[in-house]
């Protein structure tokens, strides 16, 4: 097809329209419980037009819920980076370290967030009131850490010997080698890892909130499912998708900035 004016806007809208039609047809024919697009909009309106309203613990504007979720994700994600990056560096630098921990990492990596969460809750039972939040943080950190770990390790291993030779000839100290050579050379890889980690952290948040019942997009979704308000489930799904998309775009902008070498 020939490109035309505003095709970047028109073509995606065609896709959205197609899905809306499919949705309309489905709710009218075989999925009787599925609310129609129009009904969904009607029921969700108060949450969208007053996005920051706070009417009760589990009855708040959608952006307020999103904000809670984002804060939780930010904490867990920060934790993942703080723990994951050094582990990645050790894996990349030391063969012995790799031999000791790599099998463990490969086994833990594919474990689902749903499996980690109960363990997180058990771990922090002594924290009392904060147990569920700490459990959620633990889950987010443990699940989203791996792309950072793996990419950092690959990045460190991929540092050209030339750069290391420069460090050797100049007799740079260990810290100087780390900050002047190793980290800058690994940054592009690290940021690819950071971006993938953020995607996973955002995936995990919903599961974590659903199970802990914390206020947030995921918590709201679960509560509305239990009270049979299916319109709000769709609202939550759309919100989660859009926010995830925006986060990914933002990270890819940052990532591009570091792709200098």
């Amino acid at each position, binding site marked *: 097809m020939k490109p035309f004016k505003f095709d970047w806007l028109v073509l995606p809208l065609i896709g959205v329209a197609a899905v809306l039609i499919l949705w309309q047809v489905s709710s009218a024919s075989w999925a009787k419980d599925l609310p129609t697009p129009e009904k969904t909009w009607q029921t969700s309106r108060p949450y969208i037009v007053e996005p920051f309203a706070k009417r009760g613990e589990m009855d708040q504007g959608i952006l307020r819920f999103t904000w809670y979720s984002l804060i939780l994700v930010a904490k867990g994600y920060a934790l993942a980076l703080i723990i994951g990056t050094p582990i990645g560096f050790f894996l990349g630098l030391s063969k012995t370290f790799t031999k000791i921990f790599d099998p463990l990492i490969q086994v833990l990596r594919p474990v689902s967030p749903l499996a980690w969460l109960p363990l997180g809750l058990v771990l922090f039972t002594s924290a009392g009131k904060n147990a569920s939040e700490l459990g959620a943080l633990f889950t987010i950190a443990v699940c989203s850490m791996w792309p950072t770990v793996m990419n950092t390790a690959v990045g460190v291993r991929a540092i050209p010997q*030339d750069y290391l030779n420069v460090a050797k000839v*100049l*007799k*740079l100290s260990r810290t100087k080698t780390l900050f002047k050579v190793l980290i*800058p050379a690994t940054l592009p890889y690290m940021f690819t890892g950071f971006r993938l980690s953020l995607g996973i952290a955002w995936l995990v948040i919903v599961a974590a909130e659903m199970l802990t019942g914390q206020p947030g997009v995921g918590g709201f979704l679960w509560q509305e499912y239990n009270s049979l308000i299916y319109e709000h489930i769709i609202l939550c799904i759309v919100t989660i998708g859009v926010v995830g998309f925006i986060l990914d775009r933002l990270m890819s902008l940052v990532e591009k900035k570091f792709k*200098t070498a």
Partner: protein
Amino acid sequence: MSYLELNDVSKNFGGEPVLKNINLSVEKGEFVAIVGFSGAGKTTLISLIAGLLKPTGGSIKLNDLEITGPGPDRGIVFQNYSLLPWLTVFENILLAVEAVNPNWAATKRREHAEKYIAMVKLTPARDKKPGELSGGMRQRVSVARALAMDPQILLLDEPLSALDALTRATLQDEISRIWSEDKKTVVLITNDPDEGILLADRIIPLAAGPGATLGPSFKVAIPRPRDRKAINHDAHFKQLRRDVVEFMLNSKSERHTAVTRKLVLPDIEPEDLNIPRSMTGWRKTPIRKNELKEESVEVKP
């Protein structure tokens, strides 16, 4: 006692030696060129002097001290520039200055770095990243970085081989000029005999590898400054070039290596079906040992 002394140095990376019986002595302030085929072990030789590799046998001494590891007393210009791409020209050189002179005041370090950028005529490009520079400019940064370390000896590892002929000529003149200014001891590795003769006081061919060793050294008795156009008609230059090239070619034609390789030949006997097939359907070892045949092949250059 000469300044740089290699005594019966050999190096192998497991298997056949790459270098053997390497004896070399370089006087202080001398410019020595080592010419060799690609793959002869030139880079290995300079890595040994730089301390990036350890010799398998023999000893390397600089200023009567055994070389045990890399250090800033031996400035090295790598074949592929080896600049850090995330630092600007100035920062690349400053990093070297800081590493070598940690006690200097910040302003003194900066001035020192600036001085060497000016020496290779790169002041306009001082804030550019290596990625924005041409090959010739990058190599000049690399030379400036090595010189800014104020090393006792300068090691040039095929510094100009990746450049086009014109840029190479310009940089040869520049290296010649810089050398005449501060008379550092230089070991230049090159694959171009003309370049070696043009720049050096002494030129030594490296015989073809594996097991490469240094040939006789030829003194270049052409007065400096040397003019690259006039030198082409110089009888001594022609004679030198002939000798060096002849030595290198002879060393190569002397090599007749017999290589024995194992062959799996088809066998006319039927296959033994009692031997179970491997699950993968592919095996490294032949089904019957008697299928292994050996063949000896004479390899000529």
